[in-house]
């Protein structure tokens, strides 16, 4: 499976995602400069975290108009996989590929720490190697992760099982006290209706190796790869799940 990591000016988790794809998952991967429009040959796109355009105006608002984004929208429409992490998630929201918007964290501070996140939907291409309801320990690092959507929108997300990750306590309690940033319904990650575009605030690339203290994010990448190669005759990546 060939990953493409899109590089916007100000992206700063691009190299981390690239590293996980190449060195941890042993998959082919290339950087895609934000001015490029050609996405031929890629099977999955990663919109990495960071501060595209310095987060000026609104997070993701300017990157959304980078030339590559028109191609990303077409890529998504073709059913191939797109994952946006942190700032990447914010860009997907601004681009309208996912519903809702991001507000500043409720405590008005940047928050960098490990949080517990509950896997609410394990039947997506990004999560099928996980178990429904399992609790993951994943780092967050953001200023604007306070996900907002109106009531009707939230109901639609819930009805369609589009909420993939929710902030929770160590035992999976998804109550407000365990929401670090004020996000509606403790939402940490959502998927589009078609099920091929995922946005999440936590950073799975920061917990894909034991050396960094947690491997709870690795299965997300493994899920993508193994889902992709079903029926291709390629060997699935080994996973301990």
């Amino acid at each position, binding site marked *: 499976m060939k990953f493409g990591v899109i590089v916007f000016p100000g992206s700063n988790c691009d190299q981390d995602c690239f590293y996980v794809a190449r060195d941890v998952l042993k998959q082919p991967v290339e950087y895609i400069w934000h001015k490029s429009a050609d996405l031929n040959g890629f099977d999955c796109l990663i919109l990495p975290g960071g*501060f595209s355009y310095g987060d000026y105006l609104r997070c993701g608002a300017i990157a959304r108009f980078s030339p590559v984004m028109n191609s990303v929208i077409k890529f998504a429409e073709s059913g191939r996989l797109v994952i946006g992490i942190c700032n990447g998630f914010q860009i997907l929201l601004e681009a309208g590929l996912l519903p809702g918007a991001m507000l500043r964290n409720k405590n008005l501070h940047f928050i960098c720490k490990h949080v517990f996140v509950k896997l609410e939907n394990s039947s997506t291409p990004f999560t099928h190697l996980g178990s429904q309801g399992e609790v993951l320990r994943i780092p967050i690092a953001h200023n604007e992760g306070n996900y907002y959507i109106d009531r009707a929108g939230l109901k639609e997300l819930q009805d369609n099982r589009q909420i993939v990750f929710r902030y929770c306590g160590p035992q999976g309690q998804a109550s407000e006290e365990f929401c670090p940033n004020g996000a509606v319904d403790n939402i940490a990650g959502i998927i589009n209706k078609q099920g091929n575009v995922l946005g999440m605030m936590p950073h799975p690339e920061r917990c894909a190796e034991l050396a960094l203290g947690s491997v709870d994010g690795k299965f997300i990448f493994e899920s993508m790869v193994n889902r992709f190669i079903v029926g291709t005759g390629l060997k699935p990546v080994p996973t301990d799940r």
Partner: protein
Amino acid sequence: MTAVKNYEALGLTDAEYQHILGILKREPTPTELAMFSVEWSEHCGYTHSKKLLQALPKKGKYKALIGEDSGGIVVGGLAIVFKMESHNHPSQVEPKQGAATGVGGIIRDIFTAGARPIALLDSLRFGELKHPYNRYLLRGVVDGIQFYGNCVGVPTVGGEIYFDQSYNGNCLVNAMCIGICPKDKLARARATGVGNSIMYVGSTTGRDGIGGCSILASQEFKECQDKRPTVQIGDPFTEKCLIEATLEALETGHIAGIKDMGAAGLTCATVEMAAAGNSGVEIELQAVPRREENMAPWEVMMSESQERMLVCVKKGNEKFVRDIFVKWGLNASVIGKVTDDGIVRVRDKGELVVEVSAQALTRAPLYDVPFKKPEYLSHVRKLDLRSIKQPRDYNRALLKLLGSVSIASKEWVYRQYDHMVQANTMVLPGSDAAVIRLRDVNKAIAATCDCNSLYCYLNPLVGAQIAVAEAARNLACSGATPAAVTDCLDFGNPKKPDRFWQFKKSVEGISRSCRFFNIPVVSGNVSFYNESPKGSIYPTPGIGMIGIIDDPEKICTQYFKNQGEVVILLGPAGRELGGSRYLQEIHKLVKGDAPQLKLPLEKAVQKTALEAIRKGLASSAHDCSEGGLAVCLAESCISGKDNMIGAVIDDAPLGVRLDAGLFGETQSRIIISCPKSSAAKIKAIAQKFKAPFKVIGVTGGAALKISHKGKEIINADLEKLSQEWRGALEKHIQG
């Protein structure tokens, strides 16, 4: 402005002005005078400090690299470049932008050496939080560091924060950056090769920060708020693009030299690149990209607008290099070329406004400064322990110490810093030292900042030695061999003999300790004039140290891991109280001498801990420092946030005075925990190195219990300890 009237306003003395007339054999132009004033300021020319700094060791176990703007060591073909720098006065005036631009400046010093920045640390000092302005400063500085560091994508992995009344009116913001690159890819800050182009890259030039380094950094603080217009504004987004563009451009091999435009911007960059390359440089100011109109030549030369650099591009490759910067959305324009006559020539619309020898500008006059032992020492050193009442309730004393802001957890601060970006941080903030893996060489480095300035106030020679020893001890506790130092020396007015004595003794102390540990001082920074109308700050010779971990699997953290393990004290019993937090917090006394430091004992203890960690015998290792043994044990119990583990300590050597045994800050001590089966092996290692070894208790339970001769003296619930320790800082910040 006419030169004759203005040299004094620019900080030059009569003698210096006569010296300039002698060099030029004519009167300087206004631009030349401005350039001399900054190159000969303390900040750029080290006029008062250079003679002493030359005595610092430059060699150690690893090959040392001493560059123009930073230094480092070589480990297995990899250059590790690092430096710490102060941004105190700008932060005191405008904390957010002051701290932000401090971070930006130190990062540029690293990537202009060709190294990718991989970690930041910050050493901060504030006055007491009961003053609202100090709370404003703390919030602003933390906001500035997170604003800049998070966006630029370099993890802020560690640092230190202390609070003391001596910093009321003059906070310290010292930022340290570490970078790596293959040894043969290092870049120099030199202009070489006659005919090569001088290219300006990065942001545009405005009037911001004019005179910053000579005005803000080279005199005492009085009416700081008046100087706000000279503060620069940081743009981390542009800096991030500059990092990527610069590293990409350096990779092409078309660059002969590169330098940050930091203090005194274009002046320092042109003059120092020419001097370092034994070349001359000619530039035309009209080619400098600007954002303000009608700037005078001297303003362009003195501007400290941020995120700008000067690049010496090999002739014929200008377009190639320019295209890389333009791709990243940055300005890039050729403003001049390298010449062979050693002269810096600056033209404005073709008219010559500067024509001076680069060497003359960079050879600032060096002064032998008078020094005198300060008078305060004779009374502060006097400490009669018999007059100090022992506390009746040791639990309360321990809680009070844990809740004092200098000891309390700094989580409120580091939670706001992205300490994980780049996905290499193996030990996150909250342990003795941060550990960052080096993927390409399968090693890791540990990094720490240390200085107990109270010790330095009481005894700068010993205090500075302790700063080095403690930094090394923190690294050893993480499993790293101490390898190299950057120093950031913050002091008062060097023209006052008692302040200069503190400086002199501190430099001697650093030198002595570093030589003993065989650690070079590869880079550094001097910041004088840290005074407010109320007096000088405590002498604060900040030590930034990195250490090498050959096997990244063999690292250690400070918190207890398992129930039922043995707790070991390596090192002597606590017996001193001078300069302790205990005296300060509980008895409101700043008194006594700094704790003793016996370097051979220190080394023996560190070597024992290091070997125990390397052999996989130790579960935890924690340096015993401020607050003494009791605070060290409490932190070992509670700092593992998701897994707090208590301890029963029934055989600690507490000496004759219980308070000195529990809270005294006797040096050269490390608390280790290990499985029972490992204790004998660690004992054998301690015997080999002749380090004192004692099993003092076991881990387990939900409380820290310490007893002496069968009598319980401390029994504190971990939740309560944790609440006090974790909550104190935020509580004080709220005011």
